[in-house]
């Protein structure tokens, strides 16, 4: 039963498939919520599984299992968040759940795959599902189509580039298994071809993470997709992408400085671009897209350290990123009345309308900006330290400057919701479920900031 979380996710997809082709739709939302919570429990129960399957193409270890728990938790939270508002076409809600399950299944297989073809195929399973659910947005005319076409094309191009790089990897190593590649690759790392193969292979995951030259899709997709789809795309594929970046760069610990320089330039450009453009955004989802680009740059600081500490800090940061980004997007979901996008002005008077929601937004904004005592601060601290330890002072300074720039627009969210008085103060009623989700977010963001050692204790055993 090594594959328990994946099998359960596949079962979920099949259940939703049968609901969607059946006559009676029943209460899909409640069903989905229950089943997804069970999914987290199952992933947690299988966290200490260990083993190899399919001739070593599929490795189940603590690294992959922890990421599977994160993916299952993210999936569960997205489904719980969706339950409160319906901005997806009603007839397609079962299909929507099914494709979310397929996508999570693909990502779960992705973090366990240690063979190039399996990696590509799992990534594609997850992307195809997302391409399909992007247009399912209600009460909008054009934006969602533009978003889905853009996501499809950019996704296809980045997959193509990644396959090209993998072709080189296979060509120089004569094997698609990472265990074989890791033996042969160091001989080629001081040649241009090895670096080219590695960087091109990373492209597919940098696209998912929306790092600078591969970021073009993200603002339009965030803006055009329905809130729940955005929530999924903004968080869960990024977790798996970070996992794969760690897996692939861990093959190149002995790489010459040029690889680090390439990654450093990308990280610096990504941070600076994301934060500068983020300053002028009015639409909150667009703002979060640019913040996502900037955060991809921060995450790269951990990757480019090419060390165990660096990978550890990436895992920590992607975990806190999941919670703080979900919390911020949850505010958007709850604030939007008919599924339309929320602008900064829509936040005015939020603290009067719903104090808990305003506090959730404030916590997540503080965390995204990296202000103590939130988890975002601790995570960034780890990232900066890991890059600093390897002697990359430049990127640390650029990162610190960028953090300061980003504080402006993150705190603008808080300023809008707390200090501006609106004309109409209609209280925003939160359901019991919504309150619990808000409290979960606040708890995790603060807990990861105050007691990082409890999480680090687990993560320390998983990275390589």
């Amino acid at each position, binding site marked *: 039963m090594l594959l328990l979380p994946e099998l359960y996710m596949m079962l979920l997809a099949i259940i939703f*498939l049968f609901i969607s082709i059946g006559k009676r739709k029943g209460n899909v939302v409640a069903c989905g919520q229950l089943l997804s919570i069970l999914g987290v429990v199952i992933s947690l129960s299988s966290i200490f599984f260990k083993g190899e*399957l*399919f*001739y070593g*193409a*599929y490795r189940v270890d603590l690294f992959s299992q922890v990421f599977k728990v994160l993916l299952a938790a993210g999936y569960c939270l997205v489904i719980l968040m969706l339950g409160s508002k319906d901005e997806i*076409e009603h*007839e*397609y809600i079962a*299909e929507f759940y*099914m*494709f979310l399950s*397929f996508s999570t*299944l*693909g990502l779960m*297989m992705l973090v366990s*795959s240690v*063979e190039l*073809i*399996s990696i590509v*195929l*799992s990534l*594609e*399973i997850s992307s*195809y*599902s997302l*391409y*399909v659910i992007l*247009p*399912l947005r209600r009460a909008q005319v054009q934006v969602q189509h533009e978003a889905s076409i853009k996501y499809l094309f950019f996704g296809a191009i980045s997959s193509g580039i990644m396959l090209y790089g993998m072709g080189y990897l296979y*060509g*120089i190593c*004569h094997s*698609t298994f990472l265990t074989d590649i890791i033996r042969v690759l160091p001989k*080629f790392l001081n*040649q*241009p*071809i*090895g670096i*080219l193969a590695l960087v091109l292979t990373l492209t597919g995951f940098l696209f998912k993470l929306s790092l600078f030259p591969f970021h073009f899709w993200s603002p339009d997709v965030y803006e055009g997709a329905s809130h729940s789809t955005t929530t999924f795309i903004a968080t869960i594929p990024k977790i798996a992408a970070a996992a794969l970046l760690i897996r692939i760069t861990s093959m190149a610990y002995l790489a010459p400085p040029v690889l680090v320089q390439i990654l450093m330039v990308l990280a610096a450009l990504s941070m600076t671009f994301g934060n500068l453009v983020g300053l002028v955004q009015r639409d909150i989802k667009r703002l979060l897209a640019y913040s996502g680009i900037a955060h991809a740059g921060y995450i790269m600081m951990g990757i480019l350290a090419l060390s165990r500490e660096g990978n550890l800090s990436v895992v920590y940061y992607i975990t806190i990123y999941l919670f703080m980004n979900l919390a911020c997007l949850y505010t958007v979901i709850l604030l939007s009345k008919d599924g339309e996008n929320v602008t900064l002005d829509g936040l005015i008077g939020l603290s009067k309308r719903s104090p808990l929601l305003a506090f959730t937004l404030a916590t997540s904004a503080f965390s995204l900006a990296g202000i103590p005592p939130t988890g975002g601060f601790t995570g960034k601290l780890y990232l900066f330290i890991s890059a600093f330890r390897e002697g990359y002072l430049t990127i640390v300074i650029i990162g610190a400057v960028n953090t300061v720039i980003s504080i402006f627009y993150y705190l603008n969210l808080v300023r809008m919701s707390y200090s501006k008085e609106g004309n109409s103060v209609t209280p925003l009623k939160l359901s019991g479920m919504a309150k619990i989700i808000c409290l979960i977010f606040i708890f995790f963001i603060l807990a990861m900031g105050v007691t990082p050692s409890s999480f680090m204790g687990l993560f320390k055993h998983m990275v390589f």
Partner: protein
Amino acid sequence: MTLGELIFIFLLFVTFCGALTTVIARSLIYALVGLVATMFGIAGLYIYLNAPFIAMMQILIYVGAVAILIVFAIMLAGPFYKKPTEWSKVTKFLVSLIIALFTYLLFMRIILHSFLGGQDTAFMITTKDIGRSLFDKLTFPFELVSLLIVVSIIGALMLAIFSKDRK
């Protein structure tokens, strides 16, 4: 010059001319014919690379399936006889030329500075090896393909029904 070299140069010529036609042809049908020629040329180059299986797949998939699909798309959408506008400006042409040359030189540099392998025999995989590895070492990706196809079929069906509902 041997016959083999002649055929090789002919294949290169076909591939290059096909690619050029695809990009600059005025009508979509001509562009498609160019694409088919390129695919045939590349299939021939695969044979020179000791990969007959991939050559066959290239012809089956690209010429047999993808080209037909494009024909259908052109047929349903109606032919367009418009001159592509991208090439009409000199500056755009120059910029694309510079980018193409730069990429070419970059790749030449990378390949010339790399020492590939060093083994005496060519790295060759026969159709038999591919068939075997699909059922023993690469079982997992082989099974994953089925899941990928399921996802894409369901997705395509759902999008088709969805767009019909919208009208």
